[in-house]
């Protein structure tokens, strides 16, 4: 989850997010190197006492500074496209979960076998118990099994929302009248948080998402107990 003064991405909990972090590090490194070189060049040019009034053009340097940036962009584009196509692949999901964005809560439906449906409201700050996270906890978590491809079908009931969990590398808009699909795999058990990522009214900042990943052998216990409770 996010922590104060965080600068980078959250640690990955899915293989896709690990790839995204690697790509981000690769691209950011290139961007920092290019920026440093440009800054150094400008600095030395501006502070130099040398003057040459006869230098008009140079074919050599123009060729170099055309080919080198094109090569650098190619080296960024290749991993980018590979990752883009990889994220789009269908991976034979073990489970399908439907989530509907409302003003201002998410509802989840597990309808593969029985009809399990529940709403997930944020726990208000005054009702938090010590140890819980402000603006991130919900009364019911979306529970999924670990190491299992999960298909998410996302839509909305009223305005546009967006279902996002950064540590899983997932973000998909929830649009009324449209069903969006995304998939993810949770690598290890834990609780992972996200927040609604599309402005949707007064309580847009107060409809978080919390995903709890548990080993598959315990998943059926949870779904049975939820069906009994709801």
């Amino acid at each position, binding site marked *: 989850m996010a922590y104060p003064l965080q600068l980078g991405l959250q640690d990955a909990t899915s293989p896709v997010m690990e790839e995204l972090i690697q790509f981000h590090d690769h691209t950011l490194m290139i961007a920092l190197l290019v920026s440093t070189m440009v800054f150094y060049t400008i600095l030395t040019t501006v502070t130099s006492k040398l003057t040459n009034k006869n230098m008009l053009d140079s074919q050599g340097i*123009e060729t170099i500074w055309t080919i080198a940036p094109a090569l650098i962009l190619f080296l960024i584009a290749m991993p980018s496209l*590979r990752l883009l196509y990889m994220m789009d692949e269908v991976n034979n999901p073990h489970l399908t979960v439907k989530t509907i964005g409302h003003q201002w809560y998410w509802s989840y439906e597990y309808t593969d076998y029985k009809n399990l449906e529940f709403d997930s409201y944020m726990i208000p700050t005054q009702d938090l118990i010590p140890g819980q996270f402000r603006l991130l906890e919900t009364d019911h978590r979306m529970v999924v099994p670990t190491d299992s491809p999960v298909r998410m079908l996302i839509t909305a009931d009223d305005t546009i929302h967006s279902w996002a969990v950064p540590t899983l590398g997932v973000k998909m808009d929830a649009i009324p009248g449209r069903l969006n699909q995304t998939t993810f795999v949770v690598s290890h058990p834990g609780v992972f948080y996200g927040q609604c990522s599309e402005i949707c009214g007064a309580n847009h900042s107060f409809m978080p998402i919390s995903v709890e990943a548990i080993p598959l052998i315990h998943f059926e216990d949870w779904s049975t107990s939820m069906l009994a409770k709801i």
Partner: protein
Amino acid sequence: MSSMFRMVGKQLKTHPSLIPLFIFIGGGATMSMLYLGRLALKNPDVSWDHKNNPEPWNNIEPNQQYKFFTVNTDYSKLKKDRPDF
């Protein structure tokens, strides 16, 4: 139109460093146009012939690759366990 090309050709003789520029920009534009053409003609979401093939997205096989590039999935190895219609 051809006088424009002749002018550019003359400038290229005195400034050969512009040739890589033409190669990269021309190549990029060509690749973009080719990909757009592929999308227009081969993407199952696009319907050209409303009479004979009005909904091409209904005709994709489960083991048919319609994307340009696959990383991990080998579509020819996928099981075809659905009935034909």
